[in-house]
């Protein structure tokens, strides 16, 4: 198996304790600009090749491309030494991990992002009065407003987009049984529920579309590869929840990456088609017993676990025939075990799977207080589960007390705050930013622009995400003491 390039983007929710003073956009700008350490505060984000208006189905929609003037660009964007990006997206602070190939690395960099954003909060509180902001890694305010968590998987352009759309739909509708972050209540005019598996399920209204903010689709068609467009697509997955549990994040990304590989290589052919995916995504989210069947388009009725088992069986065959690295084998084994427990006794996953961890905690609280699911304290706990403050966050409290499983060594999360992954172009980006902070005029996922003096900028394209690795450019970077030396050796 060739390594898959992948990464995630997390939009954070922001509460302001003295509400009404500032607007959400200025709050997000303040938070992002309170970042503790970045290589350079003047480097611009290079928007040159960005165009979120191109649809994978082969057309481009009307709309305005984002092209902020330099000063505003600097306010909105912070390029991180770890190769990731911290920025303002609409009215939310957002963090994108650097490009990774190992699933555990994405988990590490996503967790590092939580710490980076939490440090922003502390910085903002220091400069603007005491304890003003609270930041949540969740996806909804509980009142019908959702903000996203997006996964990105680089895939071959040679595979028709609709093949991914077809084969991923039943997978995404049922993936929430192990990937959901849990939510109290229902919203967006969906059927009422005391508690459901997914933060996001209520918000999906159509099957396939380019939109991400209104009428959200299960399959998003944004065709913006951030790489050589002749060779690659970037599957932009908007259907998932932001997770707190490392184990849940690992499973969600690892299993999805595996399914993407199976689709790419033509392994998915006869999987079940759902009669009504948009309806089923909400039904599955509400079925905490995991026993309710979903209608298939041929009249059969399968449970969500059965749908996942179909993908699992195919994955076993795929890995047996194509071989699997140790991480993929681990993911396969965990996926199998989790599905078995979901079918028999989901409560056994209360150390690993977010929606079960949260449900278990809230149920214990409800039992002690003798209150109900609609008690405001329960809604508060639902929100506070995602609070990034180590002393206040409920997931953080569970983690500290040893009530939940971890996946990665916390020390390696510390390293991921500043060190880029070594096996993608993020290595080149991160190292250049660190070594020549004043000379990187701008950068993006697919470019780096050096200031070579006399108002001249030298643009280095990074169109191959699997290049720019430590193995390929580590020595070159070590040996180049100046940007001039680096540029001339790169051009040689």
């Amino acid at each position, binding site marked *: 198996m060739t390594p898959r390039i992948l990464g995630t983007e997390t*939009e954070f*929710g*922001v*509460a302001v304790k003295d*509400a009404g003073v500032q607007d*959400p956009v200025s709050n997000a700008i303040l938070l992002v600009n309170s970042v503790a350490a970045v290589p350079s505060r003047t480097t611009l984000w290079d928007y040159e090749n960005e165009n979120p208006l191109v649809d994978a189905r082969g057309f481009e929609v009307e709309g305005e491309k984002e092209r902020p003037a330099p000063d505003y660009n600097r306010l909105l964007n912070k390029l991180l030494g770890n190769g990731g990006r911290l920025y303002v*997206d*609409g*009215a*939310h602070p957002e963090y994108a991990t650097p490009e990774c190939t190992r699933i555990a690395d994405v988990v590490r960099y996503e967790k590092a992002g939580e710490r980076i954003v939490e440090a922003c909060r502390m910085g903002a509180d220091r400069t603007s009065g005491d304890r003003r902001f609270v930041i949540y890694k969740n996806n*909804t*305010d*509980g*009142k019908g*407003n*959702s*903000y*996203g968590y*997006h996964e990105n998987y680089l895939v071959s352009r040679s595979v028709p987009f609709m093949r991914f759309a077809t084969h991923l739909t039943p997978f995404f509708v049922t993936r929430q049984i192990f990937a959901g972050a849990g939510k109290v209540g229902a919203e967006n005019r969906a059927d009422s529920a005391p508690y459901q598996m997914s933060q996001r399920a209520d918000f999906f209204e159509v099957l396939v579309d380019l939109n*991400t*903010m*209104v009428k959200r689709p299960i399959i998003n068609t944004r065709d913006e590869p951030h790489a050589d467009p002749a060779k690659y697509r970037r599957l932009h997955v*908007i259907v998932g929840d932001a997770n707190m549990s490392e184990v849940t994040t690992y499973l969600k990304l690892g299993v999805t990456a595996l399914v993407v590989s199976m689709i790419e290589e033509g392994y998915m052919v006869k999987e079940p088609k759902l009669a009504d995916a948009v309806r089923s995504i909400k039904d599955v989210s509400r079925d905490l017993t995991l026993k309710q069947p979903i209608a298939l388009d041929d009249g059969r009725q399968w449970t969500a676990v059965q749908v996942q088992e179909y993908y699992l069986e195919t994955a076993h065959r795929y890995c047996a025939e194509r071989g699997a690295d140790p991480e993929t084998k681990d993911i396969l084994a965990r996926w199998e075990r989790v599905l078995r427990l979901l079918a028999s006794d989901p*409560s*056994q996953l*209360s*150390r690993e799977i977010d929606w079960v961890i949260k449900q*278990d*905690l809230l*149920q*214990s*609280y409800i*039992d*002690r207080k003798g209150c109900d699911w609609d008690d*405001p*304290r329960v*809604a*508060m*706990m639902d*929100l*506070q589960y995602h609070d990034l403050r180590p*002393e*206040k966050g*409920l997931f953080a*409290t*569970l983690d500290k*007390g040893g*009530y939940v499983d971890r996946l990665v060594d916390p020390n390696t999360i510390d390293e991921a705050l500043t060190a880029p992954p070594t096996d993608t172009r993020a290595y080149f980006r991160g190292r250049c930013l660190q070594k020549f902070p004043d000379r990187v005029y701008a950068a993006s996922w697919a470019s780096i622009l050096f200031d070579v003096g006399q108002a001249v900028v030298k643009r280095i394209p990074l169109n191959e995400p699997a290049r720019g690795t430590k193995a390929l450019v580590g020595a070159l970077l070590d040996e180049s003491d100046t940007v001039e030396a680096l540029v001339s050796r790169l051009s040689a």
Partner: protein
Amino acid sequence: MTMSQEKKRDLKKVGRRDEASASPNPETVEKGKKMKENIDKLLDEIDEVLEENAEEFVKNYVQKGGE
């Protein structure tokens, strides 16, 4: 919540459920007590960290839609 549900959760939370599922001997009972204490401790901690005025706080938490 019934006692058995409570016990099940306690065992599950603290792990080593395979050893603890046999007939109750004094050691298991002792362990069960400790686990119950752990859950109580956790819920006490949560009472301490939970935002005050939960109803007001949750009501005021309104975000712009994102993405």
